């Protein structure tokens, strides 16, 4: 869609400069760490933008993939902190039992990094293949993914010895050999997150300007029509879904050293929906909208949530209602709206779903 690639690209460049150089210079440690946390959500949000905004798949269970990355990372950091011992929380329930089998490989940094990338790809691959080939879509897809997130959160809560349960994993001392308490190292972790966010933006930028990006929009707007051009829409959607899962996993993985704790509360229904809030606010189909929206929602939670906690919940609720009702393409569609008002343009194209619906009617 991007007609002038350099505009988006210099936008990403500007964003990179802001995140990587300006922010560390201007912000206090506390706010820089908060920004790091928002960046983790932003990374997941960029993926949601790809899957939902461009692909039309309302992913309401990104918590699942966020969890895969986060728990992989947290298990590694827990083992790094525990050294040769079995992590403390496991001891009480069975003092003599060894480390659960699936924890063992996470001692290895290499395995952990590979798991953060491969686990979501494999899980999303299988799940997406099964769902898209069976043409599960729309609200079904949304609720099924959310049900999975709830199921996973419940499962983790109930397996205390294996996963730390509801209390989650926390109190990490080291991050791949670096002492996490050291401010210099915290800055490094922040910079990694910020850099990863930029990389994700570059990835989706390339996706959006590629033929795949066009095909994805085509699939979103008229899945059946795409079929008649000789593509299997399931494959198109699968690619976008897997990439978005990967991004959620990366966001989750970096969330752990930044925030210092991961619990099932971060992956269940509420958390998964909150990830969408930012994307809707910023503009689901735009390049920067999801990331900026996620950062804005994170910031709102930190600042407004402090000064006016009850109010923040109402604002969040209203945000869903007002933005989606009146600004379905988010804040990033505002400039274009103003331009349109200044210079009259042809009417809005009809709602995307129509073509597909008409195709599915059986006519004689």
């Amino acid at each position, binding site marked *: 869609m991007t007609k002038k690639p350099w505009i988006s690209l210099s936008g990403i460049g500007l964003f990179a400069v802001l995140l990587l150089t300006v922010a560390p210079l201007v912000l206090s440690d506390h706010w820089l760490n908060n920004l790091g946390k928002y960046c983790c959500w932003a990374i997941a949000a960029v993926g949601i933008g790809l899957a939902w905004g461009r692909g039309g798949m309302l992913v309401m269970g990104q918590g699942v993939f966020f969890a895969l990355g986060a728990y992989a990372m947290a298990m590694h950091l827990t083992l790094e902190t525990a050294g040769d011992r079995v992590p403390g929380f496991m001891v009480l329930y069975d003092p003599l039992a060894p480390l659960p089998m699936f924890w063992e490989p996470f001692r290895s940094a290499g395995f952990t990094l590979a798991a953060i990338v491969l686990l979501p790809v494999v899980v999303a691959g299988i799940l997406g293949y099964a769902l898209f080939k069976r043409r*599960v879509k729309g609200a079904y897809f949304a609720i099924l993914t959310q049900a999975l997130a*709830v199921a996973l959160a419940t499962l983790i809560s109930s397996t205390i010895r294996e996963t730390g349960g509801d209390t989650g994993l926390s109190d990490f001392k080291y991050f791949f050999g670096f002492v996490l308490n050291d401010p210099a190292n915290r800055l490094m972790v922040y910079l990694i997150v910020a850099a990863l966010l930029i990389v994700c933006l570059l990835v989706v930028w390339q996706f959006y300007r590629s033929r795949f990006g066009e095909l994805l929009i085509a699939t979103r707007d008229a899945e059946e029509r795409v079929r008649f051009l000789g593509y299997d829409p399931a494959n198109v959607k699968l690619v976008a879904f897997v990439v978005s899962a990967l991004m959620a996993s990366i966001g989750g993985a970096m969330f752990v050293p930044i925030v210092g704790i991961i619990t099932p509360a971060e992956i269940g229904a509420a958390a998964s929906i909150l990830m969408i809030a930012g994307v809707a606010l910023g503009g689901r189909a735009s390049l920067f909208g999801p990331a900026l929206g996620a950062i804005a929602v994170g910031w709102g939670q930190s600042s407004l949530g402090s000064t006016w906690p009850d109010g923040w919940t109402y604002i969040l609720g209203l945000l869903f209602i007002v933005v989606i009702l009146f600004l379905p393409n988010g804040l990033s569609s505002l400039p274009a709206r103003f331009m349109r008002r200044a210079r009259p343009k042809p009417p809005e194209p009809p709602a995307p779903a129509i073509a597909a619906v008409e195709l599915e009617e059986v006519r004689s």
Partner: protein
Amino acid sequence: MDALIAPLLNGSAQGALLLLAALGLSLTFGQMGVINMAHGEFLMIGAFAAYLVQQVITASNLSIPVALPVAFVVAGLFGLVLEVTIIRRMYRRPLDTLLVTVGVGLILQQAALQIFPSQGVPVEKPRWLDGQLTVLGYNWPLRQLFTILLATACVAALSAWLKYTSFGRRIRATVHNRDLAETSGISTRTIDRLTFFVGSGLAGVAGVAASLIGGTNSQMGAQYIIPAFLVVAAGGIGQLKGTIVAAWAVGVALAFFAYWTTGSLAQVLAFILVIVFLQVRPQGLFTVRTRSLA
């Protein structure tokens, strides 16, 4: 014997509650393709309505029977307001209604937290529901039977209404083919409003039943919405009998899983069971040819 009877009976009651929660959802989803994520909060409204009725009529023997229609109307009115103010603007974007109603749910939850005592309020069970029925050696709580009877009554009333009243017939016509119904002179606007009123009202009735089983507080609705939707999906859209069978199956599965494993694992297994089932039959148990969005 107990190992079979208890889960079977309790599971049926659990299924009946799920059915009550899912009935309204099935109606609004089947009719309009709208997923109302605030449905759980409408359920909560029904439960609080029951509490308020008990403040007026203190004899619980009488208050619960009175609370049922009151909860239906109160929750229904909330649904009507939601339809008129928000949902009707969004019929062309069914998927987006899902997110909008998430926002509505958040607001209703927070409002309930601030209006009512945060710990929740008591809703007293009628005395005539004290006691148990002995079935093959198992002392089955009467309240469980009540849930089943209530669900049965709601299903019967709903299907009679759909079948024998002109409104009901128009609803069915709209479910089958909205455009055709419109061209045949049915005001789909009125039908939509009415459907939403009835669907939300049923959530209110479910809320009264839920208030007799668990706590009545701002968080109570959240636990029902996803299971209820899974039931609707597994049953097949716009299919009353599908919803009934699916709710019963999920309830009994939950009870048996809970019997064999733990309460947590039962939840996980039941969810996974439904998801796998939808893999095998994405259209649900029973299918009807409609212009649905899925």
